[in-house]
């Protein structure tokens, strides 16, 4: 790996929520506030995550329990939030996420991070709706800071048009609805209904314990995952993208719930997985 800027997380929660008529950050899915959900999801992929807020939001309890980056420029809007983060940590790239993406999944984030091109201003998904970049589920590189400042100085404030005009690295979407955002009470009601009917079968809580080389490469001894993987093989692929595991799966065995398992055994919520690299006892 050549040296490229590390990625931190930035959850945008400075919006006025005008059309929703209530604070979007506090909307709940499956009993969890969507800001907390987005924050926890980002944290599973990048080590340091912040919440982007306006100056008048720093005492709001929904936001204040997370590390904050306060807007350093006037005018509001997502570009100000992104510029403020780039100014605060000039050597860091930011995984920027809107807080109102209830269908975002770990697989979507893993794929975005895996597809990152640090030589561009940003890496973003191509919208399934209009083919334009999705700026609020994207990795923004440090090099974009000056161009963003110029863009705003010229009177623009749309991050999507910025990426369209500045050759962002575009990633093809897998799931057409993963980046649907929620702006009105009607959309919220529909999203909650869809979430409640789909969350249980599609997303599973899986615990992974790491040993030896895997522990060192994952940078942790265990983690609790919300995953769409259906088999240990899919889970290894998903985690391999995220943690950059060096060993191909054919060199490993896998254990599920404390016993050797087939790589294609269906996963069930609550399963405990251990990836077993080549052993060397004796």
């Amino acid at each position, binding site marked *: 790996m050549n040296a490229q800027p590390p990625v931190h997380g930035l959850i945008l929660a400075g919006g006025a929520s005008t059309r929703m008529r209530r604070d979007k950050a506090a909307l709940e899915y499956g009993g969890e506030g969507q800001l907390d959900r987005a924050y926890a999801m980002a944290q599973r992929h990048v080590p340091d995550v912040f919440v982007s807020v306006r100056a008048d939001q720093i005492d709001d309890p929904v936001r204040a329990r997370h590390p904050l980056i306060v807007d350093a420029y006037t005018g509001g809007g997502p570009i100000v939030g992104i510029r403020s983060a780039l100014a605060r940590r000039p050597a860091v790239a930011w995984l920027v996420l809107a807080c109102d993406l209830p269908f975002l999944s770990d697989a979507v984030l893993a794929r975005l991070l895996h597809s990152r091109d640090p030589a561009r201003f940003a890496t973003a998904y191509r919208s399934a709706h209009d083919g334009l970049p999705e700026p609020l589920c994207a990795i923004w590189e440090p090099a974009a800071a000056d161009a963003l400042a110029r863009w705003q100085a010229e009177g623009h404030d749309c991050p999507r048009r910025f990426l369209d005009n500045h050759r962002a690295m575009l990633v093809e979407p897998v799931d057409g609805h993963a980046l649907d955002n929620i702006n009105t009470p009607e959309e919220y009601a529909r999203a909650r209904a869809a979430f409640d009917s789909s969350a249980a079968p599609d997303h599973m809580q899986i615990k992974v*314990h790491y040993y030896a080389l895997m522990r060192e490469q994952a940078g942790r001894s265990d983690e609790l995952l919300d995953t769409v993987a259906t088999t240990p093989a899919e889970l290894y692929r998903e985690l391999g993208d995220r943690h950059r595991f060096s060993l191909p799966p054919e060199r490993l065995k896998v254990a599920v719930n404390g016993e050797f398992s087939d790589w294609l055994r269906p996963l069930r919520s609550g399963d405990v997985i251990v990836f077993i*690299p080549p052993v060397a006892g*004796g």
Partner: protein
Amino acid sequence: MMRFRFTASAIDTESARRELLDGGAGGYVSFEGWVRDHNEGLAVRRLEYEAFVDLAVKEGERILAEAMRRSPVRRAMCVHRVGGLAIGDLAVWVGVSAVHRGEAFDACRYIIDEVKHRVPIWKKEHYVNGDSGWVNCERCAAGSNHARAPARSLAHRAHD
């Protein structure tokens, strides 16, 4: 009684041996695996063992049961170290008592061979030159000529 165990402190071979005493046994064989000061052409300074204990104990017990099915062994045990070890330390101990010496030798050999290939235990070597690496996981992945052949054969064994 667990016949396959881990310990984070020095293995007490004398008390382990006593657990194998049996009036019907005519012989006893033990094997001691020691930490060697070199491996694959590199000078080793110290090493660490790490185990996935839950599954390692289950697999170790299975190996001991297999050894006892294959030959008429009276008792068999294996104790493996985890944690940091220095050159010369005892890393693994296998003991078998049997009616006749032949079965004791065979079973002891079977147990240590299977433990090395099947039980989820990992060894990190720290070399005199400052490098370190997980044996069978890293040097072969990096394409080292010397490490490649044995690592491959081990990988195949591990997937039997």
